């Protein structure tokens, strides 16, 4: 194996001494390759630069997790968010902080014998929680189910005929506020957690939008803000709470909070007040005289997908 003298040594057959010539074919190809590679890299990163420039202010970027903010910090954050709502939507809104009451754990029950599937709850949710008008988003999906089946995966949401159909029943599904919430377990940044009154909340400013929680939720209860919500100024609900119905930024998850901005003030959720048939029962599970406790104690209640061990705080029942 005698190497022929005068070759570069890689066995490529070229004539040796390439380092003598700056503009050899080899160097030109190398140079072109490096230039193309660098251009492709810059192009690939450019959306990131665009995104950071557009959406995130320095204050927002440096904001701590909700649970680490002091009362003073929170005030600063709320005023900033109110200013942003004014700039971006032209609406005068009030953002406040609603905390759980001691001795309260929320429960919700829905009477499937009474629900007629009119979807007024979903509509009320849409307006109460400042949902994107373009996608008609709502935290509630009303499933039309065939009598005899309890499999929510077989439910149809796109029914379009007078209701109730005699062969069907109607099952609205929203966040079940699980006591063992899989969505909280999978969040890689602890942007979602369960509060003392049982409500699973999201810090929209801490969420990184990975959508793991959406995949983990067996009730399809979480929604992703693919776009910045579009809401006409005059339709914005100005009474907002940091953890619930304030207008969400683009690229974060959101979910039903049992209207905590109402319920933590002692009021009923918007979906309950909108129900024309009175199919919904809401209250404090820790109060033995509450309506919700009477339902659980006297009706045959069931929870969705009990076998998954999620321990929902949302109950369904039929009249005998």
């Amino acid at each position, binding site marked *: 194996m005698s190497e022929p003298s005068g070759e570069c040594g890689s066995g490529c057959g070229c004539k040796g001494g390439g380092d003598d010539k700056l503009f050899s074919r080899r160097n030109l190809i190398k140079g072109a390759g490096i230039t193309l590679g660098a251009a492709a890299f810059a192009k690939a990163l450019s959306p990131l630069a665009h995104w950071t420039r557009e959406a995130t202010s320095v204050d927002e970027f440096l904001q701590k997790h909700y649970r680490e903010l002091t009362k003073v910090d929170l005030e600063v954050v709320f005023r900033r968010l109110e200013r942003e709502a004014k700039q971006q939507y032209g609406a005068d809104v009030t953002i406040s902080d609603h905390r*759980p009451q001691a001795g309260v754990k929320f429960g919700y029950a829905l009477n499937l014998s009474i629900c007629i599937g*009119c*979807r007024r709850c979903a509509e009320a949710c849409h307006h109460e929680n400042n949902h994107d008008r373009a996608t008609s988003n709502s935290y509630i999906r009303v*499933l039309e189910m065939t009598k005899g089946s309890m499999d929510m995966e077989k439910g149809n949401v796109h*029914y379009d005929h007078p209701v109730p159909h005699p062969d069907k029943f109607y099952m609205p599904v929203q966040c079940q506020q699980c006591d063992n919430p899989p969505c909280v377990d999978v969040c890689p940044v602890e942007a979602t957690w369960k509060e003392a009154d049982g409500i699973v909340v999201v810090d929209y400013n801490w969420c990184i939008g990975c959508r793991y929680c959406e995949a983990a939720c067996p009730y399809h209860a979480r929604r992703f803000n693919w776009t910045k919500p579009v809401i006409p100024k005059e339709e914005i609900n100005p009474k907002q709470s940091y953890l619930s119905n304030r207008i969400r930024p683009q690229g974060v998850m959101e979910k039903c909070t049992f209207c905590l901005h109402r319920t933590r003030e002692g*009021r009923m959720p918007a979906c309950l*007040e909108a129900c024309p048939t009175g199919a919904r029962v809401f209250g404090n599970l820790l109060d033995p005289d*509450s309506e919700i406790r009477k*339902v659980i104690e006297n009706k045959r209640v069931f929870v969705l997908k009990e076998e998954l061990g999620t321990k929902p705080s949302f109950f369904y029942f039929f009249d005998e």
Partner: protein
Amino acid sequence: MAGEARIGKIAFGGVIALIGVVFVGVLVWTWLARNDLKPGPKAEEPSTPAVIHPVTIRTPAGIPRVATGEVDSQGQPVTIACATCHDTRQPNYETRSGTTLKDFHQGLHFAHGNQSCLSCHNATDYDTLKQADGRPLEFSQTLMLCAQCHGPQFRDYQNGSHGGMQGHWDLTRGGRTRNTCTDCHDPHHPAYPEVMPVFPPKMVRGETITPHGENHP
């Protein structure tokens, strides 16, 4: 030499013990400082004693009047009180439908079991209703009239699981308004009517609908 070796051994053992203590200390500190299970602060308790706010049941409109089909000179429909006609007519306990009547109530859609008109209306005073035992009942008290037959519904109503409501779940912080029976049920044909659903959900990109539903939500 032997003494130096012993001192070296003791020093070595001390360093190992120190490392162990620091390691365990850090573990314990991290465990104590974990905040993933802390649910955040609670609201301050109100210091004032709790007042229970009232639950108001909506009252039905008072004594009904019947439209004559005429309009007066101002264009307002002319209505008359029940007694205008019924004071001078013999009650017919057999009447079960408006279609058999000659003067008024012909268009009345009636579908409420096998009841006759005078099962609920009081033939001796048409400005009141009649309970099953014959005692009169004001029109504002219709809830109790319905409750005579619809016991399970009345029980559920009292337990708060039948009938719509508005207001507060927490009566220490505000009152509540509850619907009465006739807000949702027409007493002459009480089955809840069919309605067209509102607010149809929009299709998510990539979603398909099979002709008979059964699609993924």
